[in-house]
C-alpha cells in the first residue's frame, strides 16, 4: 500500500490500528521533523540541546506514542484538519518537559539534605519581599485599566475584546498568536485593529485629556494617510 499518499491523520489511524513496518516508516519519516522541532525547543528552554538528548527524546516520543496508541485513539478528536499535528506536538512537549523536570529533580535531590532547598526558599522570600511593592502597584494598575476597559466595552464581543487586550498587554502574545486561537475568531488584522481601537479608548480615558483631543479634532498633517 502507498502510505505516502495518505493524509497525516489517515496514516496515524492506520499505524495506531496496528500498521505494518512500511506504515510506521512513513509515520516516522513524516513526524520526525515536527517532533524533533518541539523536543529541541523544550530542550533549549531547559538549557540542554545536545543532539544525543534530542535524538533520545524523539525516539522516546515515537515509542510512547505507539505504546499509548489505544488510549490516544479514544481521546483523539479531529477538531480541525491538522489536529493530529497539534496532538503530536502536545505529546512530544509533555514528554520532553517531564524528562527535564525529572532530570532537575534528580540533580536537586542531591542537594536537599544539605539545606539548599531551604536556602532557595529563603532566597525566594527575600526576592518576594523586594518585589511585593511593585507587584501591588502592578495589580492596582491592572485593576484600573480593567475597570476602564469594562466601561468602554459593550456589546456581544466585549468579553472577546477584553481577552484580546490582556493577552496582548499582560500575557505578551503577538497579534498573530492571538488570532490563531480559535475562540478569538479574528484574523491577525482583526486582532490588530481591535487592539488599536481599545488602546486608543483606554488612553483617552486614562491619560490624554479628552478635551484636548476634541479641540484637535481628527486632523493630522495628512488626515487621509496613516503611517
Amino acid at each position, binding site marked *: 500500500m502507498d502510505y505516502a499518499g495518505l493524509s497525516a491523520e489517515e496514516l496515524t489511524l492506520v*499505524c495506531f490500528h*496496528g*500498521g505494518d513496518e512500511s506504515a*510506521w*516508516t512513513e509515520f*516516522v519519516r513524516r513526524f520526525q521533523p515536527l517532533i*524533533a*522541532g518541539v523536543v*529541541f*525547543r*523544550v530542550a533549549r528552554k531547559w538549557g540542554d*540541546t545536545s*543532539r544525543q538528548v*534530542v*535524538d533520545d527524546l524523539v525516539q522516546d516520543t*515515537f515509542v510512547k506514542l*505507539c*505504546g499509548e496508541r*489505544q488510549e490516544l485513539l479514544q481521546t483523539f*478528536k479531529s477538531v480541525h484538519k491538522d*489536529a493530529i499535528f*497539534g*496532538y503530536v506536538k*502536545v505529546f512530544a*512537549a*509533555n514528554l520532553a*518537559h517531564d524528562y527535564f523536570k525529572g532530570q532537575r529533580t534528580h540533580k536537586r535531590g*542531591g*542537594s536537599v*539534605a*544539605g*539545606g*539548599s532547598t531551604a*536556602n*532557595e526558599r*529563603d532566597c525566594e522570600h*527575600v526576592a518576594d519581599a523586594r518585589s511585593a511593592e511593585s507587584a501591588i502597584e*502592578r495589580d492596582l*494598575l*491592572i485593576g484600573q485599566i480593567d475597570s476602564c476597559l469594562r466601561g468602554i466595552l459593550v456589546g456581544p464581543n466585549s468579553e472577546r475584546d*477584553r481577552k484580546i487586550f*490582556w*493577552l496582548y*498587554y*499582560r*500575557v505578551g502574545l503577538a497579534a498573530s498568536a492571538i488570532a490563531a*486561537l480559535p*475562540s478569538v475568531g479574528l484574523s491577525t488584522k482583526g486582532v490588530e485593529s481591535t487592539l*488599536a481601537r481599545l488602546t*486608543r479608548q483606554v*488612553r483617552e480615558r486614562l*491619560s*490624554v485629556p479628552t478635551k*484636548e*483631543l476634541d479641540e*484637535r479634532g481628527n486632523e493630522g498633517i*495628512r488626515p487621509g*494617510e*496613516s*503611517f
Partner: protein
Amino acid sequence: MSEEKHLSGEQIDRLIEVEVGGPDGQVPDALLAEAQDHLATCAKCQKLVAMYREFYRTLSLAGRATSGRATSDCPSERSLHELAAGVIPLEQQHAVLNHVIHCDHCGGLLRDALEIFSDRQDETERITLAKLESGEEKWQRDVARQLSAQVEGRKPGQVLRPKLHLPRWPRWAPALVSLAVVLLLGASIIWMHTRTPSIAQADRLLVQSYGERRTMRMRFPGAPFSTVVEQRGNLGGSGSFSRVPQALREAEPLIAAGLRRRPQDVGWLQRKARADLLEGRAVPAVASLEMALSEQPSDLTLKTDLASAYFENGESDRALKLLDEIVASDPVNAVALFNRAVLLSAGGRYSDAANAWTRYLEIDPAGEWSSEARAELSKARTLGGAQ
C-alpha cells in the same frame, strides 16, 4: 487664517511604535520623516507625544510580571499546551483563556508553549535539527521496525479473538493474578536491589560518611552539616585519615561495581570522586571529575565537586574560576557560595572572604550551615581588619 495642522492620534501611535521596535518596517520612510520633522518644531505635538509615551510606559508595566506562582485554580500544563497547539475543545478554551489573562504563571506557560509550537525556525535550530541522527533514513527505518514489532506483540484484534473461546474465569482469579504480580514485582525489586549497584545507595552512604566524619572543608551537594574533623598524618593521596567510616567502606565496593558495569558513567565517576575526596585522594578525584565534566560540561554539581577537588589538590585559582562560573549561572547556589567563601578564607583573602560569607548568609540566614558561616565571617572580619 490658515488652519493649523498637527499629528493625529494614530500617527503618534505609529511614531511611538517605531521608537519601541516598530511595526515591522511597514512605515514608509518619507511619511515617517515628515511626521518627525513636524514633531521637531511643534510644541503642542511634542507635549502630546510625551503624554502618549507615558501612557505606553504605564501600560507596559502590566506586562512586567514577576514569576507568578501556580494556584489550585490553574489549569493543567497539558491544557495550556493543548490550547497553544489548537487542539483544546472550544468550551474548555474559553475557560482556560479566562484564567490565563488573570494569571502570570499560566500566562508565562502559554507564551512558552506558543513559542515551542511556533512554525518559525531560527538558524541554530535549523543547523541542530539537520544534524540529528533521527533525521537519517537508517535511524527512521530502525525505529519503524521497533514500533511495528511493538504493535505486532499486541494488536487489538489478536488479543480479542482468543478471548472469545476462553472459559469464564472464576471470580477470585483476578485477585490471585494480582497477588502473583505483586509477589513477582517484589521479588524482582529485591533481586535488582541486591544485584545492581545503585547510585542512590552510594549517595546515601557517602552522605552518611560525610556527616559522621567530615574530612574536607568544602561541601558537596547533598552533604549534611557536620564539623570538620582534625586531620592526622599526611594527606598526600594515601587516604591516611585515622579512621575511615563504615559507610565509606561500604560505598567504595559499590562504586567500584558500578564503574565495572559502566566505566564511563558520569554518575559513578562523580561518586568515585567524592569517595576519593573523603579519603583525601585529590588527584584521582580531579581525574574522574574532569572526565565526567567532559561528558556533561554544563552540570553544575560536577563543577562544584571539581572545584573541591582542585582546592584539595592545591589548585585554588582553578577552583575559584569554576566556583565563579557556577555562581554566575546560579547566584543562589548555596553549596557553591559556601565553598567559594571557604576557598577565599583559606587563601587569606579575608576581605573578599568576609563579603563571600555575608553573601552566603543572605541566602542561608538560619540553615544548619549558617553557624559555621557566621563563625567564619567573624574570623574573616577580624583577620581582615588586622591586615
